[in-house]
C-alpha cells in the first residue's frame, strides 16, 4: 500500500460554548476519527449538519475556525505531524501543499479585485511561480475547467461572472499553486441544480487531469459518489463507516449509512384527476416598480387532497406564484379560483374563510416562527383566531395537533430555539393544520433540512394528506422530492410553465429541452452517472 499523503490518527477536536447564564461548556466536535488520503485520490466526507465534516476538512491544514481547538491525535501531512507545527510552518504549508475551496465563492472573492489577481495571489506570494508563469497557469486552468474565453476571463470582476463560473474560478485558485491536496467544502451546494453538475463535472475533470488529491465534503451522497474514490460517513463527530465508494453505495454495512443510501425511496401512487379546488388561470405578475413579468400567463389546477409540485430553478417564478396565490402580490392579469370562489387579487379583499382555508409553510422554519412565542402560542393562535377557542379547549386542540405531527407531550411550552430543525418544521406544519385548511402551500419546506429529516417531513406530509384530505401546492427545485409526493407537476422556467400534467406524463419521455436538463441534473446514486449525463445533454444550464 502506498504511503498516504494525509493521515488523521485518532483525531480529536474540541470547542468551548458559552450558553448564556451558565458555565462555559466543553464540546467535543470530532472524536477519535482516523482516516487517510493517498496521493491523487479523492476522499468524500459525508454526514448531516453538525457531523464535523467541515471541521475535519479544515483540520487537514491544521486550522480550527474561531475557538475550535485541535486537541488530540496526529494530523500527518507528507510524513510530518502538522497538528503541532508552529505558525510559520503552517503559513508556509497553507496555500502551497493544501488549498481550500469554500461553499460560497461569491462571499469568498474580494469584489474590488479582478479574478486573475486573486487566482494567482497565493502562488505568487509563496514564491512558487512568477506573476507571468502563474497567469499562464491560471489561463490553462480556466480552459481545463471549461470557463468561457479563458484568455480574458481573469480580467473580469467577481460580479461579472455567474455563480457557477465563480465556483470554478475558485477551484482554479486552489489548483494554481500545484498543491498536493485540495479541500472542497460543499463546492456545489449553493448552486442551482442544473449548474451544480456542470461545476461538479469540471471539478472532477480538473482533479483527474492535475492528479491532485482531494477531500470532498458534502451532505449529498449522490454527489460524492460521482467524485470520490473512498467515502467516510460521519455522524456527531464520530466515524460511522469507511469504505470504497462502490462498497458504501452498493453494500453499506451500518444502519445509518443504509438509511442515507435509501433516503429517497418514498413510493407514492399518483391519484386520479378530479375537479380542482384551486385554479390559477392565465396569471401574469410583476413586482411593483419593475418592467419585467416574473410570471407569464401561468395556468395550473389542483384537485382536493392532491399534490401539485411546482418545479424549477431559482428565479423561475415558483415562489412568486405562491405570493400571487396567497394575495401578497396581486397579479396584473388572470384569475384565481379557490373552493368555488374567485379570490380577491389583494390580501385585504379576502374573507376570513379564504385566509383560513389557504395556509402556507415556509422554507426556513427558523424565521417562520416568532422566537418570543412558545409552541403553544404559535399553534394556538390560528385556533383562537379562526375558531374562537380559548383556555383549556385551545390547549387540548394544540396537544392533539402536536400528537398528529408526532411530537407528543412536553413541547407545548418550549420556545422555537429549543427545537431541532425538523421539529421546527413540524410545528410550522401543525400551525398550518390548525386552521383546518383545504390547501397548504409548501415553499421548499425540506430544502433546508438534512436528508433523513427531510424524508421524515415528507412522510408526515403524505400521512396528513391522507388523514385531513388537504391539498398541497409543493414548491421545490428537487426532482427526487417531486417523485416522492406529487400527483401533478408544473415545470417552470423563466416565469412560464413549460411542462404541466399528471406526474406519470410529465416524467415520461419525450421531454422538452428544459425538463430534460432539470431531470438529468439530479445526481443519481450510481458511480459513473455524471459522465453519462454530461455526454447526453441537450441544452446548457441558464446559470452557467
Amino acid at each position, binding site marked *: 500500500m502506498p504511503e498516504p499523503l494525509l493521515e488523521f490518527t485518532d483525531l480529536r477536536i474540541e470547542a468551548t460554548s458559552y450558553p448564556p447564564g451558565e458555565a462555559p461548556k466543553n464540546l467535543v466536535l470530532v472524536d477519535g476519527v482516523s482516516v487517510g488520503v493517498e496521493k491523487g485520490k479523492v476522499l468524500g466526507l459525508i454526514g448531516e449538519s453538525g457531523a464535523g465534516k467541515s471541521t475535519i476538512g479544515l483540520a487537514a491544514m491544521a486550522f480550527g475556525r474561531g475557538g475550535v481547538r485541535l486537541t488530540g491525535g496526529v494530523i500527518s501531512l507528507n510524513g510530518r505531524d502538522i497538528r503541532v507545527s508552529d505558525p510559520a510552518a503552517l503559513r508556509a504549508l497553507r496555500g502551497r501543499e493544501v488549498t481550500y475551496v469554500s461553499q460560497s465563492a461569491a462571499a469568498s472573492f474580494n469584489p474590488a479585485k479582478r479574478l486573475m489577481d486573486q487566482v494567482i495571489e497565493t502562488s505568487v506570494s509563496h514564491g512558487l511561480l512568477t506573476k507571468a508563469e502563474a497567469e499562464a497557469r491560471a489561463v490553462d486552468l480556466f480552459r481545463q475547467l471549461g470557463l468561457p474565453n479563458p484568455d480574458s476571463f481573469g480580467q473580469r470582476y467577481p460580479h461579472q461572472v455567474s455563480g457557477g463560473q465563480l465556483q470554478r474560478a475558485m477551484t482554479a485558485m486552489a489548483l494554481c499553486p500545484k498543491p498536493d491536496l485540495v479541500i472542497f467544502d460543499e463546492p456545489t451546494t449553493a448552486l442551482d441544480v442544473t449548474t451544480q453538475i456542470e461545476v461538479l463535472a469540471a471539478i472532477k475533470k480538473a482533479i483527474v487531469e492535475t492528479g491532485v488529491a482531494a477531500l470532498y465534503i458534502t451532505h449529498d451522497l449522490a454527489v460524492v459518489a460521482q467524485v470520490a474514490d473512498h467515502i467516510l460517513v460521519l455522524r456527531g463527530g464520530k466515524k460511522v463507516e469507511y469504505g470504497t465508494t462502490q462498497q458504501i453505495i452498493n453494500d453499506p454495512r451500518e444502519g445509518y449509512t443504509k438509511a442515507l443510501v435509501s433516503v429517497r425511496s418514498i413510493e407514492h401512487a399518483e391519484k386520479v384527476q378530479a375537479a380542482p379546488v384551486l385554479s390559477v388561470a392565465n396569471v401574469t405578475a410583476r413586482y411593483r416598480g419593475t418592467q419585467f413579468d416574473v410570471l407569464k400567463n401561468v395556468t395550473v389546477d389542483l384537485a382536493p387532497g392532491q399534490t401539485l409540485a411546482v418545479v424549477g430553478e431559482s428565479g423561475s417564478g415558483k415562489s412568486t406564484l405562491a405570493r400571487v396565490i396567497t394575495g401578497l402580490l396581486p397579479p396584473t392579469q388572470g384569475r384565481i379560483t379557490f373552493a368555488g370562489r374567485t379570490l380577491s387579487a389583494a390580501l385585504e379583499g379576502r374573507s376570513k374563510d379564504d385566509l383560513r382555508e389557504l395556509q402556507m409553510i415556509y422554507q426556513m422554519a427558523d424565521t417562520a416562527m416568532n*422566537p418570543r412565542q412558545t409552541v403553544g402560542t404559535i399553534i394556538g393562535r390560528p385556533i383562537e383566531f379562526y375558531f374562537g377557542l380559548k383556555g383549556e379547549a385551545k390547549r387540548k386542540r394544540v396537544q392533539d395537533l402536536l400528537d398528529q405531527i408526532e411530537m407528543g407531550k412536553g413541547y407545548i411550552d418550549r420556545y422555537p430555539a429549543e427545537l431541532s430543525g425538523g421539529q421546527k418544521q413540524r410545528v410550522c406544519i401543525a400551525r398550518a393544520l390548525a386552521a383546518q385548511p383545504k390547501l397548504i402551500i409548501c415553499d421548499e419546506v425540506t430544502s433546508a433540512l438534512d436528508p433523513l429529516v427531510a424524508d421524515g417531513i415528507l412522510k408526515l406530509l403524505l400521512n396528513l394528506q391522507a388523514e385531513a384530505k388537504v391539498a398541497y401546492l409543493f414548491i421545490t427545485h428537487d426532482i427526487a422530492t417531486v417523485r416522492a409526493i406529487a400527483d401533478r407537476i408544473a415545470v417552470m422556467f423563466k416565469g412560464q410553465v413549460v411542462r404541466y400534467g399528471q406526474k406519470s406524463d410529465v416524467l415520461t419521455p419525450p421531454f422538452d429541452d428544459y425538463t430534460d436538463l432539470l431531470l438529468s441534473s439530479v445526481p443519481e446514486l450510481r458511480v459513473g452517472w455524471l459522465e453519462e449525463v454530461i455526454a447526453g445533454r441537450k441544452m446548457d444550464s441558464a446559470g452557467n
Partner: protein
Amino acid sequence: MRLPFSAILGIFLTSSFLFLAVFAQLLAPYPIDSAVGGVWEAPSATHWLGTDTIGRDIFSRLIYGGQITIFVALASSILAFSTGAFFGFMAAVKGGWVDQIMSRFVDLVMAIPSLIVALVILSVLPLNLTVLILVIGLLDSTRVFRLSRAVAMDIAVMDYVEAAKLRGEKQTWVIFREILPNALSPLVAEFGLRFIFAVLFISTLSFLGLGIQPPLADWGGMVKENKDGLIYGKSAALMPALAIAALAISVNLVADWVLSRTTSLKGGRGA
C-alpha cells in the same frame, strides 16, 4: 447567574438615586427653600455638601431636585418611547406613503437642533411641568422613532410577520405581539440612553432659565444658581453637576447590562 461588577455598581447607584427621589420628603435633613446657614459654606458635619448662594442646604436641595429631575426625565422618556416606538413600528409595517410622510416629518424636526426648538416653544407656552414633559418627550420621540423603525424593518420582513398577515391579523396584533417582543432589547438599552439625554436636556433648559422654575429645585437650576461661586473657589456648583454625571453613568451601566443580557436570552436578537 453572576452579575458583573459594573452592573452591580450601576444597579446600586441607580436604585439609591430612585430611593432618595421617592422618599425625598422623609430623607432630606432640611426644607427645600429655607436659608439654614451662611452663604457658600464648605461641606461640614451639619451641611454635608455645604450651603448655596443664599445659605440653603445643598444636600437637601439635591434630594428634592433629584425628585423633580428624575420625575420629569422619566415621564418624558416614557412619553417619547410610547409615541416614538408606536409610530416607528407603524411606519415599518405600513411602509409606502405612510412611512414616507412620517419619516420626512421626523427628518424635518430632527434637522432643527432640539434645544432651539425647545427654547422657542417654551418661551411661548406657559412654563409648568406638564408643558416641559410634553416638549422634551415629543422632541425625543423623533430619535426613538428612527431607532424603532429601523429595528422593526428588520423584523417586519421575517416570515412569521408575513404568516401573521396571511392569517388576517390586525395591525395592532402584528405590532404588539409579533414585532414588539423582538424589538424590546435594543429599545430597553436605548431607554437608558434617552433617559440620560432627558436629564441633561432638562438641566440645560433650567440652566438657561426656561426649565423648572424657582423655588422648586432641580439640578441644572442649582448649577446655574451657584456657578458664580466657582470663581471664588466654592464647591457648591460642583455638587449638582456631580449628581448629574453620577446618575448618567449609573443608568448607562444598567442599560449596558440589560442589553448584554437580553440579547443572549432564548431566541433573542443578536449574539
